[in-house]
């Protein structure tokens, strides 16, 4: 009998797979965005508007990750963007291996932007690196400005926070400044946008950021 010291994090094998995938995608000039939020925060609705506004400029695909069903993929395909549905088999998040398999489903086409719409959940997806170049999270006004306090890891790992459903702000006691202060307390570099998919408010700034990220990923 012998003892072998390992001293590595449990998700080390996933972290390695994710890094390999990230480098492969960057080599192809494809930006993979890991889009995360709780169920109903408006992930698919944000994507619908973003795709409509940007599809003439960039070749975009979406990978919808859900425990079950394909309702989101159907919504995206209606806009003329390529979409695949990945089922996580009951799992609460996507990992690098599942992301690679979903990318293979998209085929050989060269995409400028692939969005992974992760499982609706503010906890687990934050813990697993999918190989994405950028992590974007949404928080909708009805969810409340205290969420950075309750789900700190998600706010810590994200590059971008998009506050959605700003059109309903008059009906909720959502304190935008408090929310931003809490998010920046966890992650001083986080970029924050405020949008309403209903009115289109705020989409210009978000789409400008996204376009810049796509071009930077290509080395431009």
């Amino acid at each position, binding site marked *: *009998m012998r003892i*072998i*010291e390992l001293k590595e*994090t*449990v*998700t080390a094998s996933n972290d390695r797979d994710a890094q390999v995938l990230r480098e492969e995608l960057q080599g192809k000039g494809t930006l993979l965005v890991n889009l995360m939020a709780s169920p109903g925060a408006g992930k698919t609705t944000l994507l619908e508007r973003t795709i409509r506004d940007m599809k003439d400029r960039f070749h975009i695909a979406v990978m919808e990750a859900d425990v079950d069903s394909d309702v989101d993929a159907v919504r995206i395909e209606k806009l003329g963007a390529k979409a695949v549905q990945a089922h996580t088999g009951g799992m609460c998040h996507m990992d690098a291996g599942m992301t690679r398999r979903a990318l293979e489903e998209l085929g050989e086409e060269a995409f400028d932007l692939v969005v992974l719409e992760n499982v609706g959940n503010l906890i*687990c997806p934050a813990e697993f690196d999918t190989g994405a170049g950028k992590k974007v999270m949404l928080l909708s006004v009805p969810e409340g400005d205290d969420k950075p306090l309750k789900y700190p*890891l998600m706010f810590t790992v994200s590059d971008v926070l998009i506050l959605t459903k700003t059109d309903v702000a008059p009906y909720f006691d959502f304190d935008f400044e408090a929310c931003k202060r809490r998010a920046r307390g966890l992650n001083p570099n986080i970029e924050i946008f405020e949008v309403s998919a209903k009115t289109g408010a705020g989409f210009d700034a978000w789409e400008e950021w996204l376009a810049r990220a796509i071009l930077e990923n290509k080395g431009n």
Partner: protein
Amino acid sequence: MHEMGIILHLAKSLEETAKEQQIEKILRVTLQVGEVSGIMTDYFTDCWNYFRKRHPVLETAELELETIPAVTFCSACERNYPTVQYGRECPYCHSGETWLIRGNECIIKEIEVE
């Protein structure tokens, strides 16, 4: 909440190690689990016992969990304090400018093999 997902990755890491080092049977796996890692240890052990039966190299592996106490650092008074007892607010100077420095990890410390 995501215990099964973590077990899948743990099993994959262990199988890779076993292959590299030509290990046929793992008898014990020792994990260090942070106090605020969000892992529910009872459920985690249940998941492990369910899962290991499907993997010949892991079948005999007992899971041993060691707890890593969570520690928070206060950037206002530059002192450390136990996270679970006091939470986000520094018990010395009551500042909210505090950061978790240890306690949310899950590390494979060592394995015992035949």
